[in-house]
Structures are given as C-alpha cells and as structure tokens.
C-alpha cells in the first residue's frame, strides 16, 4: 500500500466566473429600441427605394437624368410591407424615423449624464497608434476581443465602430432623411447645402444605410464569436460574465 502524492492542482484551474455590471439601462434600452427601429427602417426604406431604384447626385434627378447607381429591385422577403405598397412603407418609415431621431437624442443625453461616452467610447490618441491597431487586429483574428488587463474596456475597433455609428452614420441617416422632406427644406435650407441638394442627400441616405447594414452584420458575427448567450444576456440584464481568456 502506497500513498501517492496527488499532483498539485493549480489554484486557478477552475477560477470562479466573475460577473460584472457592464451595460447601463440607457444603453440597453436604446440598443433594443434601435434593433427594432433600424430593422423597420431598412425594410420600409427598401420598399421606398423600389418606387424609384435610381440614385443621382445634385438637386434634381428623374428618369431623363443620369443616375450614378441603379439598384436592384429589392425582393419581397427584405421589404416592409412584403408586397409593394409605397404608402404603407412610408407610414412605417416616417413614424419610426421619429423613434430613431428622438431615441438617439435621449440616448446621447443619458450617455453624457452617466458618463458612458467619456468612460467607454472616448478614443485616446495612443489607441490609434499603428502598433496598437495592428495588435488589436491580430487579437481579433485570434478571436480575443478583450484586453486581459481591462476586460470591460472596449477595444479600439469597437470604439471606432460605435463612434462611427452613433456620431456618424445614424445622424447622417436622420439629416439626409430630413433633407429629402420638402417641408424641412423650407424650414432648414442649410440641410440642402450640407449634402449638395436633395438627390445627393437621397444618395448619401442610401450609402449610410448600406454602411449601417454592414455594421449590423459585423456586429452580429462578433456577438456570435464572442459568445452570444453572455453577450445577449449582458444587453438584457446588464450583467456580463468576464470571459475566461480575459479573466
């Protein structure tokens, strides 16, 4: 009978999972309102685009003018409503445009007040260094999205894409949308100067929507890669489990 000495077990082999409060109520609320709103805006927007699937630069543009882009006819499985009805598509689009615009405004005020912008989204100069960008890029390729030293911090690509969407793409969608309204053009003529005419605004509206769609696709892919249950839960309850690779 021999007594074998059990191999020493490293203390950190089974670390207690650490859960932190990551997303505050304003962020979570806005995220889900936007998820629905942008879904409706893209679907109804594609129906509206189907009414005249040609894009122009400048103030005017119609059938006898030269379009820079003829889009495809958007199929019924991506449009709202499924069967072409411009009037109903406009009802969806113009109601949810208000949700989008005032939602962004509310979220921006809340995120200044709760310091979400300053704390989480402020891009520091050193983060933009080539070395850091390259490092984060390689980390992404290895599916490591969190800085082990500070796992709750957004990485630089996250920061840049959120900043681009919150301060770039969504405001551009709203302003180009307003620039297409003949009533708003009378009220705020500077909207047209900003984009170089109504048809240019319509083109920029489409390009920004394509950019936003690209963001959503990448966002969803990264949520899946980062662990969808943990990520979705954190956006519902605010509680986020710190991944083991970053613990």
């Amino acid at each position, binding site marked *: 009978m021999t007594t074998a000495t059990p191999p020493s077990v490293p203390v950190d082999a089974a670390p207690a999972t650490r859960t932190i409060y990551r997303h505050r109520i304003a962020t979570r609320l806005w995220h889900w309102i936007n998820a*629905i709103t942008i*879904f*409706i805006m893209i*679907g109804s927007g594609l129906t*509206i*685009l189907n*009414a*005249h699937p*040609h894009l122009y630069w400048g*103030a*005017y*543009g*119609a*059938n*006898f*003018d030269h379009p820079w882009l003829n889009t495809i006819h958007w199929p019924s*499985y*991506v449009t*709202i*409503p*499924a069967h072409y*009805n*411009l*009037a*109903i598509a*406009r*009802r*969806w689009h*113009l*109601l*949810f*445009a*208000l949700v989008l615009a005032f939602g962004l405004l509310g979220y921006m005020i809340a995120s200044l007040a709760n310091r979400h912008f300053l704390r989480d989204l402020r891009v520091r100069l050193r983060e933009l260094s080539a070395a850091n960008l390259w490092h984060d890029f390689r980390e992404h390729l290895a599916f490591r999205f969190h800085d082990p030293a500070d796992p709750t911090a957004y990485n630089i690509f996250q920061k840049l894409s959120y900043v681009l969407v919150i301060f770039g793409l969504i405001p551009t969608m709203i302003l180009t949308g307003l620039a*297409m*309204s*003949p*009533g*708003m*053009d*009378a*009220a*705020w*003529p500077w909207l*047209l100067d900003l984009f170089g005419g*109504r*048809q240019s605004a*319509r083109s920029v509206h489409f390009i920004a929507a394509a950019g936003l769609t690209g963001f959503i696709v990448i966002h*969803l892919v990264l949520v*899946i890669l980062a*662990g*969808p*249950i943990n990520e979705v839960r954190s956006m519902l309850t605010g509680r986020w489990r710190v991944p083991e690779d970053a613990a």
Partner: protein
Amino acid sequence: MSLITRRALVTGAAASAGLLLSGCDQVAQVPALRKILFSGEIMNRGLQRALSNRDALAPEFSAADMSPRFRVNGTHNPNTPDYTAMVAENFAHWRLQVGGLVARPLSLSIAQLRGLPARTQITRHDCVEGWSAIGKWHGPRLGMLLKAAGIRDAARYVVFTCADLYGGAPYYESIDLVDAFHPQTIMAWALNDHVLDVGHGAPVRLRVERQLGYKHAKYVMRIDAVDSLAKVGLGKGGYWEDHVDYDWYAGI
C-alpha cells in the same frame, strides 16, 4: 459555446427576423395598431409646422439649375370628351370656378387668369416615389384668388377638383389655409416659359411647394373653400389619401 448552439442561434435570429417582417404586415391590418402607425403623419406635421415659419419659402433656384427635361407623371392626358373638346378650342370656354365658403364665387376665363398679377418661381418638384425635377412655374397666388372671392372665416381647407378621372371620378386634393395662403402657392398656367401643356396639367395646376407631387393637382376645374374634409371624397381629403393610404400632409 458549441457549434450547434451557435447554429441554433443564427437560425433563431433569422427566423425571428422573418417573423418580425411578416409581423409588420399584420400590424398594418389591426385597426388599433394601424391608428398608431398612421399617427406619424400628425406628429410629423405638428413638428414641421412648429419648426418652420408659416411663410418659410421652399428653396428657389436659378435658370442654370433647371432639369433639362421635366418628366410628366400621373395623368398624361385626361382624355375625356369634355377635356379633349376644351383642348381643341384652346380652353376658350374653360372656366376656373372658385366657390364653397366664399362671399363672391368666381368664374375665371383663361384670359382673365393669365391677366392676373403672377409669381414666377424656379422650384424643385419632389415625387413621393423619390425623384425630383426643377422647373420654372408662373401663375397667380392662390391666396389672392381666395381673398378676391372673399373666403369666409369658417373655411379651414381648400379643395381642388380636376378634369382627370381616377376610378371614374375627378381627381381631388386638398390643403389647409397655411399652405393655401403661402406666398409660393400658385395656380400655375406656365412651365419653363411656355403655356402649360396637357402632360403637365393644362390649363392650370396647383403648386404647393412645401409638399410632395401628388398634392399638386393638375387640370384644376374647381377650387372650393370648406370647413371640413369629412364630406370630401371618402373623408381624407384626396384621391390617394382615400384610396391608397397616402398621408394627407405630404411635407415629408
């Protein structure tokens, strides 16, 4: 996270997107939800009216900015026996009636209409479909006609009845008095320095520059001041509003 769960999640997300898409179509059928969906028009009108000066002008352009060719849309030719006869005699017996809630109904010949002081404006026409064309319009202000007819205090809207038929009945549209008395709201009888042709609404059409194209009634025969839209058509104030759910307020 196993691959199975991931696949289930992606499938689930795609399925819920599909459900949401078809859900939107069902929402539009439920009367109570439809009412919410249609309330956007009231909010947008309220916001736009609150944000803009009552007389804020739609942008005007220079001759160099004009569309090389101003496309025809909607009715290309009313093609009714009455209208064809009017065209044949150059609208010699055509009359524009101004009536309803007015003290002195008017009946204007084309010569009288063309003799009135007129406004010229190079403006952008925006179709609800998304295209725009810039043209030069010329005609008397609607507000001037309404004042000449002695519009009554009870009047709230102005209704246009046209010579072109939709579903067998004359096309009709309406605007409120804010737009009716707007400086750029004119009864245009010329486009790009030529007398209005049949395609663009001869002999006279409405220009209401802060709204979309379908509000700009062509082939106008009658202008009536009314206190409510309830008795106009099916009650929503215009052919497209009554039959195809378009917004009555088309400033957006």
